[in-house]
């Protein structure tokens, strides 16, 4: 525990696990779950002990064995114990059923051949009378489907029924997330989903559920982006709800709203355009996570007119930024925004070159090669500014000895290389 290695105690832990008293057994299994892993040699000695505990008359013995096993199950253990666990899925006590269903996921991961025989029983558990067992079954199938969506499309009608009848928020969230993963494969499913999802959006009071519904509607609409006109209403609804989330004072909701907006941006940039002011406001937020999300959204926001002002704002952030990762992130974003669509939005290339030179003066950047590539690109392709570029480059080379210290050398040297190349190539403009 606490990260120290206790593999020398593995055998002793197994002895404690085989104690008859529940108190000791529980402690043994806890120690095992914290320290056993696939490399533990003695782990196969536990097989029989676990099997005995799984068939114990006391439900808590079984429970503690299942919980412990879920942390250290290996392919061998999974193969040997799969049958016992499958029988437990139909145990009389819901407490055991719940745990058995949930551990089957781990067993499937380690021993995939167990999936086929266990699957019919797992499907039955989706309609188990106990809500805990039902939500465990939903959980397992959702995880399986995320790994391999094609095989679980046939379950979609069953999940649809569950979605419309269940009131448990966790189950609903899992099912809706699952549908989000399935819709890219089956557009007809998407069409059917839009209506119940929009109903849920209007009726639910739980923010978590609302957010997941919006997310899945976005996924559906992206997969259906054949541009059917009546879906623009759904997009408007989503964008509207997301705006409410972003305007909320709760930072978490803001973060999630921005995250979802960036998904919409990829396929429906126009819908997001109208909220430009809100995004720019988020750029000034003191929360770094939110600023990063807002940066992601900036791609769709730029136009010829506001590019300069946005970049100026980003440069002030660069000066204020404390962490180098955030600074690097900003730098990449500035360059990406400016250079997107073949420099579509830049009207004044001289201004762009001066921005690049200013970025060079940043300390400890890892993206020197990006700046260098940009300088070369612009200087070669835009004949008109070559004279200006060369004068800037020679100024940079002259002052290089002032800029370079040992920490900055990585970023600077690539830019200096580019600067020298430009001066050499277009030396006719040198004074």
């Amino acid at each position: 525990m606490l990260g120290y290695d206790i593999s020398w105690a593995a055998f002793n832990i197994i002895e404690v696990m085989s104690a008859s008293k529940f108190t000791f057994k529980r402690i043994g299994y806890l120690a095992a779950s914290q320290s056993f892993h696939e490399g533990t040699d003695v782990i196969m000695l536990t097989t029989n002990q676990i099997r005995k505990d799984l068939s114990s008359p006391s439900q808590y013995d079984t429970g503690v064995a299942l919980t412990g096993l879920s942390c250290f199950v290996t392919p061998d253990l999974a193969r040997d114990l799969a049958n016992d666990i499958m029988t437990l899925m139909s145990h009389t006590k819901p407490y055991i059923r719940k745990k058995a269903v949930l551990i089957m996921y781990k067993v499937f991961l380690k021993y995939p051949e167990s999936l086929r025989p266990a699957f019919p029983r797992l499907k039955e558990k989706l309609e188990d009378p106990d809500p805990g067992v039902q939500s465990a079954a939903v959980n397992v199938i959702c995880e399986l489907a995320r790994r391999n969506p094609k095989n679980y499309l046939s379950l979609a009608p069953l999940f649809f029924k569950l979605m419309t009848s269940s009131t448990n928020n966790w189950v609903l969230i899992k099912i809706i997330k699952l549908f989000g993963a399935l819709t890219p494969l089956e557009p007809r499913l998407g069409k059917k989903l839009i209506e119940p999802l929009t109903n849920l959006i209007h009726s639910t009071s739980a923010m978590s559920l609302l957010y997941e519904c919006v997310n899945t509607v976005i996924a559906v609409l992206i997969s259906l982006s054949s541009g059917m006109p009546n879906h623009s209403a759904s997009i408007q609804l989503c964008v509207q709800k997301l705006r409410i989330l972003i305007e909320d004072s709760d930072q978490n909701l803001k973060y999630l709203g921005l995250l979802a907006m960036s998904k919409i941006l990829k396929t429906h940039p126009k819908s997001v355009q109208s909220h430009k002011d809100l995004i720019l406001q988020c750029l000034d937020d003191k929360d770094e996570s939110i600023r990063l999300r807002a940066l992601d959204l900036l791609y769709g926001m730029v136009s010829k007119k506001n590019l300069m002002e946005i970049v100026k704002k980003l440069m002030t952030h660069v000066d204020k930024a404390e962490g180098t990762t955030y600074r690097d992130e900003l730098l990449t974003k500035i360059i990406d925004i400016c250079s997107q669509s073949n420099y579509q939005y830049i009207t004044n290339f001289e201004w762009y070159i001066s921005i690049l030179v200013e970025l060079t003066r940043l300390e400890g950047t890892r993206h020197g090669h990006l700046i260098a590539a940009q300088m070369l690109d612009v200087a070669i392709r835009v004949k008109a500014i070559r004279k200006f570029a060369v004068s800037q480059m020679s100024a940079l080379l002259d002052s290089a000895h002032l800029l370079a210290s040992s920490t900055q050398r990585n970023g600077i040297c690539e830019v200096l290389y580019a600067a020298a190349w430009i001066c050499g190539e277009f030396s006719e403009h040198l004074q």
Partner: protein
Amino acid sequence: MIKAILIFNNHGKPRLSKFYQPYVNTQQQIIRETFHLVSKRDENVCNFLEGGLLIGGSDNKLIYRHYATLYFVFCVDSSESELGILDLIQVFVETLDKCFENVCELDLIFHVDKVHNILAEMVMGGMVLETNMNEIVTQIDAQNKLEKSEAGLAGAPARAVSAVKNMNLPEIPRNINIGDISIKVPNLPSFK
């Protein structure tokens, strides 16, 4: 799936660490890295962070809550709902509060096994088992009773303590029967 659950205090000392993925030699580093990321956060910023490199990078999110001196951090991947996990942290802390009666950091230090047992009723193998606090507390109470009944001689002091706690002092001396002689004792005032 939940990849890891960490509880550490304001100085980065781990109070509970439960990993659901086999991070064999890097556990301490992960705790240090996570503490580093989380402690830089201001009080009223959002509770979501990208995971550090050791724990899986940007595919995994760190969802954390800060209560007094403790940080509760859940490292999850994209299959979990962020707001749902925030709720789960809340349920976990409330359950700890109920089981320990006004839980504080010392309870976590001296009763790590109990905290692990409570956590085991909520999250199993990285997946959420139960979110209803009453259900969890019922199971924990039943298991505690089982432990107590097994305790034998070693459990005698604990049993004496709970017997005294449950004793209803003002009621007892009202009717003392010694064989045939029945003595009626006046009502003793309740003393606190």
